[in-house]
């Protein structure tokens, strides 16, 4: 088995992984840095798919205090305020770095300065962008910079498990698998940065790329890291509906609503007038998504189960020039975004919950750093559009800086070969098993189950039913079959089994935490507890593994910078 010794191992090549690599390398070019990515570098994950843009304070009329306030309000006050404060303060530095060092070029205003566009839930137009396909520019340029540095890149190589010391409190590396060959790789690293993204793909209608299956979160969970607010999973209000096509669920960007796009139900009512008369379609994602879902459930949806997004009143020329990427995508399904209403549905999009970290991305396990969507706390109960890529680049950079510093003061802790053997056996066992549950059927079932029972609107009863079935499915996936004569290399069915195994871990955390929070807040809506209850639930829910089960508890939110009454008073 191939063994690599590295100072820092990074899992993932989205915004968080790439910025971690660049910052770690630039902190100390002598460090041996290995970046492993499930797909091709910079091509997998969701940072690449960022459309709308990047929230950042650049204009003197705007302020980080305002950005902070919007973020906390948007997050319904359960954000970790120190993380949110770090986000808004570091974002300008990252945009500056992108424009002057990394080589990104964002759209400009008439006067030649960086343009910022309106997004929902914001008190100032602060979203930096490149057209309506911003992620391509950020991720392609950051990838180019990785090519300029002596960083070992392992493409189509997935993380299987984190490796720990005998006490289980120190991460000492990771077991990887080269997807092309099916061969295992052991990386003994002083520091591991996990940045593989969330698991929203476990829902029937979902936005993320297919490779994103909560691998990092599941690995961190199995290794014993502490998690926070796992019930908080965002549904984006405007996922494109395209029938059975896999295009379904892909996001039509937030800027459309920012620019004045309207939402109608099937009987022609502009329904946001009833749900948020003040902000209408520019309300936060949690509210707009839930409103759309309620309309559909009340029988006022389209036959295909959607509502209608209409841009036509803004003028076809305007829509086509500002949103060429969105127009093109809609054209692929034979519709004209600039001239007619388009069917959309809430789509599972982003996990606010994740591994608990501090402002330097330290997790509860020594040697384990977590950044981006895998980490929790920055966005509280709901993330603002445009704060996602800001999160991944800001905390990716911080994880890189912190891991570099950590690695310089630490020695390698040896890998436990017995543990490695146990983990490799847990993959190899599927070969030669021609009978058993079909992984694709299980995956489809998971997607439906999550959509129906752990979705936009939840109840205690539905969540309990989900948890029961999820536990059974976790056993079934371990007995899944592989086609006879399966090869080790490029075995997509095997990878689907490994994906599903991870998605099931994350699914159970989401459902269990959702069952625990007996109130509604942000993206988490309980039909049986429809009110926000600040008296009892202005707190975070923490979970960690305990034997085969878990330990769960709440701790009050630390209102270090802003209290709910500060906002209400103004």
């Amino acid at each position, binding site marked *: 088995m191939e063994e690599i010794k590295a100072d820092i191992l990074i899992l993932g090549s989205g915004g968080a992984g790439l910025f971690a690599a660049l910052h770690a390398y630039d902190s100390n070019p002598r460090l041996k840095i290995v970046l492993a990515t499930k797909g091709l570098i910079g*091509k997998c994950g969701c940072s690449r798919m960022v459309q709308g843009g990047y929230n950042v304070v650049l204009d003197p009329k705007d302020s980080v205090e305002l950005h902070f306030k919007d973020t906390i309000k948007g997050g319904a006050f359960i954000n970790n305020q120190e993380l949110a404060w770090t986000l808004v303060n570091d974002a300008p530095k990252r945009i500056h770095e992108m424009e002057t060092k990394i080589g990104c070029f964002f759209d400009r205003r008439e006067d030649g300065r960086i343009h910022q566009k309106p997004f929902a839930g914001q008190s100032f137009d602060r979203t930096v962008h490149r057209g309506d396909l911003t992620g391509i520019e950020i991720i392609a340029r950051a990838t180019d910079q990785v090519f300029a540095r002596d960083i070992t890149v392992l493409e189509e190589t997935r993380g299987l498990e984190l490796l720990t010391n005998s006490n289980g409190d120190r991460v000492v590396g990771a077991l990887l698998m080269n997807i092309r060959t099916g061969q295992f790789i052991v990386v003994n690293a002083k520091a591991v940065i996990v940045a593989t993204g969330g698991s929203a793909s476990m829902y029937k209608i979902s936005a993320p790329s*297919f490779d994103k299956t909560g691998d990092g979160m599941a690995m961190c969970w199995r290794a014993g890291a502490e998690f926070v607010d796992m019930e908080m999973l965002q549904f984006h209000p405007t996922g494109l509906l395209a029938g*059975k096509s896999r*295009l379904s669920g*892909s996001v039509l960007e937030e800027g459309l609503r920012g620019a004045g796009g309207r939402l109608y139900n099937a009987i022609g009512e502009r329904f946001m007038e009833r749900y948020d008369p003040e902000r209408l379609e520019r309300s936060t994602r949690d509210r707009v998504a839930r409103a759309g879902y309620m309309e559909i459930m009340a029988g006022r949806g389209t036959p295909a189960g959607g509502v209608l997004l209409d841009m036509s009143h803004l003028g076809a020329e305007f829509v086509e020039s500002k949103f060429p990427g969105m127009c093109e995508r809609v054209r692929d*399904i034979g519709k004209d975004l600039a001239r007619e209403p388009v069917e959309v549905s809430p789509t599972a999009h982003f996990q606010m919950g994740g591994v608990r970290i501090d402002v330097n991305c330290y997790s509860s396990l020594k040697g384990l750093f977590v950044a981006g969507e895998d980490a929790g706390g920055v966005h509280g109960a709901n993330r603002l559009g445009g704060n996602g890529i800001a999160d991944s680049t800001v905390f990716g950079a911080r994880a890189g800086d912190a891991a570099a510093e950590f690695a310089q003061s630490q020695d390698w802790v040896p890998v436990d070969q017995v543990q490695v053997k146990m983990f490799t056996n847990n993959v190899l066992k599927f070969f030669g098993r021609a009978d058993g549950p079909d992984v694709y059927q299980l995956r489809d079932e998971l997607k439906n189950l999550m959509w129906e029972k752990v979705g936009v609107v939840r109840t205690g009863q539905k969540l309990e039913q989900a948890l029961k079935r999820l536990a059974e499915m976790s056993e079934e996936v371990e007995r899944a079959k592989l086609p006879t004569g399966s090869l080790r290399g*490029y075995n997509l069915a095997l990878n689907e089994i490994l994906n599903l195994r991870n998605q099931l871990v994350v699914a159970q955390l989401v459902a269990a935490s959702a069952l625990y929070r007996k109130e509604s807040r942000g993206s988490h809506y309980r039909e049986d507890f429809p009110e926000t209850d600040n008296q009892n639930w202005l707190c975070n829910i923490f979970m960690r593994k305990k034997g085969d089960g878990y330990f769960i508890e709440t701790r009050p939110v630390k209102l270090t910078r802003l209290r709910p009454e500060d906002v209400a008073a103004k």
Partner: protein
Amino acid sequence: MTLNVKVFRFNPETDKMPRFDTFKIEEFPNMAVLDVVMNIQNYHDPTLAYRCSCRIGMCGSCAMYINGRPRLACRTQVSSLGTKDITIMPLPNLPIIRDLAVDMEPFFEKYKKIKPYLIPKQDLKEPVICKPDSGERELIDYMLECITCGACYGACTMVATDPHYLGPAALTRAYCLIADKRDAATRERLVIVEQSEGVWRCHTQFNCAEVCPKKIVPTQAIQQLKKRCVFKRLGLFRG
């Protein structure tokens, strides 16, 4: 409607010759070729190998040779093909890992040769001020949409006949940096692209432009580079 789908199968480690497998797949509305491929792999033959990621034309992972032409599988609607017979093969001009998955390494090796990363000028301390109507970035801006899917590389006859030719995508990236006023390595890159395996290999056949899913015209970038190379030889290049 039923689609007749022929899929290229080949494992270079064990197979002497490639073969085609045929599948009958039910068409549904808005079906993309990627839906066809996934349908086959998920429900008909789980051993099929292919690559995809974002499924909305942003990552450039799923370029394949579909009915005789390099295209992104995710952005190719079945209805646009005008036939129920679909033949899916791996992207040409690249080594096959297995079935429809190709090794992009030669493509990126060449991409890396032109130093695809910004090497900022010393005095670049703030984001540049650049008016949209200045025309300064007119060509670069739309070329930055490149998603390095390799469709152009697969369509280029010069790449097919000269394995060392840098190819359309790498040269387009080189142009974007050479025309970028923030960059300090213009001459360095011109020296790279003016080699015999650089811009002069392009015979302006426009195959790259025809297949680019982002509607970029690499030929245009290459001609811009040729102009600068000539000026440089004549001692007239400023920049």
